[in-house]
């Protein structure tokens, strides 16, 4: 990973980003705005599952409202995130926070995909029985905590020393 990061940092795309100082903060700002949309979208679907918001709407209606914004914002995050990795490969790829964050992003995305598939196939079952299951409500809370952790870990990439030896082990 060390060699890969160093190779990546010498590519022309990376050099362009490195030599234009405004690119990284601008891309980070778009990244932050997009994660705001992701977090709020997950939050509203989870609140609907918990019965704390949108009770005049079915779960299907709530998901139809926020699902596309969630996917769209995730695409923006993927593109801006990739730009940040290319622009500062050593900072990102050798950070413990980065890899932990990527793991949680994968979990959060898979859970969202499974949820959307399942809701599409068993709409009635979700609207009646599933919405009242404690395990589903617990899963909603856990999902939100996963995305909260993604945001926190994203900021902690700038302070990877907080992980002590876990961080330095990546740096070899």
């Amino acid at each position, binding site marked *: 990973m060390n060699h890969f990061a160093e190779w990546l940092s010498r590519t022309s795309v990376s050099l362009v980003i490195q030599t234009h100082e405004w690119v*990284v903060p601008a891309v980070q*700002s778009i990244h*932050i705005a997009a994660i705001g949309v992701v*977090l*709020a979208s997950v*939050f509203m679907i989870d609140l609907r599952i918990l019965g704390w918001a*949108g009770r005049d709407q079915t779960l299907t209606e709530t998901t139809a409202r926020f699902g596309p914004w969630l996917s769209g914002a995730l695409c923006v995050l993927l593109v801006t995130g990739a730009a940040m990795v290319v622009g500062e490969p050593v900072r990102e790829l050798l950070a413990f926070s980065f890899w932990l964050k990527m793991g949680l992003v994968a979990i959060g995305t898979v859970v969202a995909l499974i949820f959307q598939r399942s809701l599409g196939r068993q709409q009635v079952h979700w609207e009646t029985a599933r919405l009242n299951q404690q395990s589903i409500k617990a899963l909603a809370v856990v999902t939100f905590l996963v995305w909260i952790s993604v945001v926190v870990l994203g900021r*902690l990439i*700038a*302070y990877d020393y907080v992980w002590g030896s876990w961080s330095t082990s990546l740096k070899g």
Partner: protein
Amino acid sequence: MEIAGLLASLEASALATGIRNSLYLFPLIESVHVLGLTMVFGTIVIVDLRLLGLASTRRPFSAVASDVLKWTWRAFAVTATTGLLMFTTNAGTYYHNAYFRAKMALLVLSAINTLAFELTVKRSVRSWDRNAAAPAAGSTVAALSLVLWIGVIFLGRWVGFSSASAPAPTDTDIKIENLENLVPK
């Protein structure tokens, strides 16, 4: 003169010193600040898109607003508190930072924008609550709100890049290889 004294005493306070002397407090506070602001922005986008007639149009505006805005305010309280804590650690630098000042100006404009909405368009909410979009004044407020908050996010990031506001650790056994990580990006 008075401001300079106030800023200096803020920086010298036990709270600010405590945060500066900890390796972990500033990163933790900043992470919670980002978490709060993403929730503020994400929830405000939901309300603004409703006013603009771009999303949630089949629900009354008041239903969307009552679901969402209480969380916006809670998240704002968290963001403002953590922001104030970060400010105290390096008050003089932030106070004179042009991006910080611009960000505060946008926050004031955003507050005026919200107040204008509450005092005008919101008063007649019953007449347009179920319409797909709010009256022109309401859509204008929503568009302005989106622009202002995106501006706040950008300026906030520029404050971080231009002030190098990392806490100066006084820990003596700090590893030299960790020093390069102390400048936040």
